[in-house]
């Protein structure tokens, strides 16, 4: 049976896909909240946001994943490994989403905020109606790259017993007697997700780019 392993890799592919989607949603939520904290006028919130980003960004993802999956249960919470993987990925990627958004917010000209204030908008309104819509457009490319990186980073789930593409191909490389076939097939499985994402980012970039 030459291509017997394709079934297993296909299952791994679905796992990788759902890991990517779920943690992307989580990361966007966490990142947005963090970015709001980091640009807020409240010093404590800023400090919390900055500390979070600095700590998480400088921790290797595999360390974070193991700390989550096997460390945190010591303190009580109990989830399945898939859930821990999604949480670790969301928490990690959230820091990068935050930085992408923040650079977008910073890129919105100071005059925009001043103008919004001049016509009587409050901080929340200024953010919601003037700054964020513009910021979101400038952040499409960096945000897209963060999502592509996230797709690749889901491989970390293999280190905590989630049977994604990487874990399956790790087991198959030695057991299937066709290492090259496994390598090719699993590389292809990742490319199926990352290449279209990359193209989509390029497209969007052209369409929504803010000309300044």
């Amino acid at each position: 049976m030459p291509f017997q392993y394709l079934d297993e890799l296909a299952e791994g592919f679905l796992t990788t896909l759902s890991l990517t989607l779920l943690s992307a949603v989580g990361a966007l939520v966490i990142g947005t909240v963090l970015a709001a904290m980091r640009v807020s006028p409240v010093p404590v919130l800023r400090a919390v946001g900055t500390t979070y980003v600095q700590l998480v960004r400088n921790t290797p993802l595999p360390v974070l994943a193991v700390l989550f999956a096997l460390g945190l249960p010591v303190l009580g919470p109990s989830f399945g490994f898939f859930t821990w993987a999604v949480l670790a990925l969301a928490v990690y990627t959230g820091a990068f989403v935050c930085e992408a958004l923040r650079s977008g917010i910073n890129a919105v000209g100071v005059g925009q905020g001043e103008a919004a204030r001049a016509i009587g908008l409050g901080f929340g309104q200024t953010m919601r109606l003037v700054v964020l819509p513009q910021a979101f457009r400038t952040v499409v490319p960096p945000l897209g790259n963060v999502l592509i990186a996230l797709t690749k980073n889901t491989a970390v789930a293999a280190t905590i017993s989630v049977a994604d593409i990487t874990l399956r191909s790790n087991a198959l490389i030695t057991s299937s007697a066709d290492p090259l076939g496994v390598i090719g097939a699993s590389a292809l499985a990742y490319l199926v997700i990352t290449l279209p994402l990359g193209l989509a980012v390029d497209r969007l970039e052209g369409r929504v780019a803010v000309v300044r």
Partner: protein
Amino acid sequence: MRRTRTARLALLGLTTALALSACGSDDEGGSAAPAPEQTTFEAGTTMAAIQERGTIRIGVKYDQPLFGERQLSGDVEGLDVEMGKIIAAKLGLAEDDIEFVEAVSRNREPFLQQGQVDLVIATYTINDTRKEVVDFAGPYYITGQSLLVAADDDSIGGKEDLAGKTVCSVTGSTPLERIKTEAPQATVIEFDTYGRCAQAVLNDQADAVTTDEAILLGLLLGAEEDFKVVGEQFSEEPYGIGLKKGDQAFRDFLNDTIEASYEDGSYQEALEATVGQVQDELPEGPPVDRY
């Protein structure tokens, strides 16, 4: 390729030189290691070569409590290490003349084939596939696949109780594959180390860890209140001493040494000091297999 090989050889020479210079200077003694014997071996044999060189390189596990575990101090301890010391003593070498290097499971055959080590004593199961590329002396210890569960868990008494339970083993290992057929209704999870599996049991994320009982006993060490080993062994894993294929004289010497250690009690002593820490009833030394 060639350059790396020469570099490696140069490095080997260097470490040998270091080991040689080290053995003259510090002589701590202290431990209960068998005293070196002065035997002479026929010229041309591996034994004579090692004796001439004055140092022996042995591949052991670094992460296998009771068999080969590196301590924070850097020393390696365990039954495999003790067996190495017994053999070194028969070759007339002192404890300081032994160079222990880490052998991870997938490295063991290449280490021997390339001559990076003289011996591999690393929870090394004797089987036919491996016999095609390396030779084995021994066995010196026989174990089998078994189960480790939480100390307060009475719901699992053996592999037949695993239906609906979660069992953990190491990615790509034989026990992982075997448990899938032995307990098809169990959920199987996998990590890259058994330590992580044990942690998963502590966290209630898994119900049992499965692998060779020898390794499970190691997990038990220092955690006797948390875990227990249950059930009959459902495979037979004879641990042997790996050596380069085709060196019949060396293999005979090793087998003789193992048998002698059964006779003079040094084997029992080694077993007592290691596996004895977690097991009261210790097995007899298994008969060596001069295949």
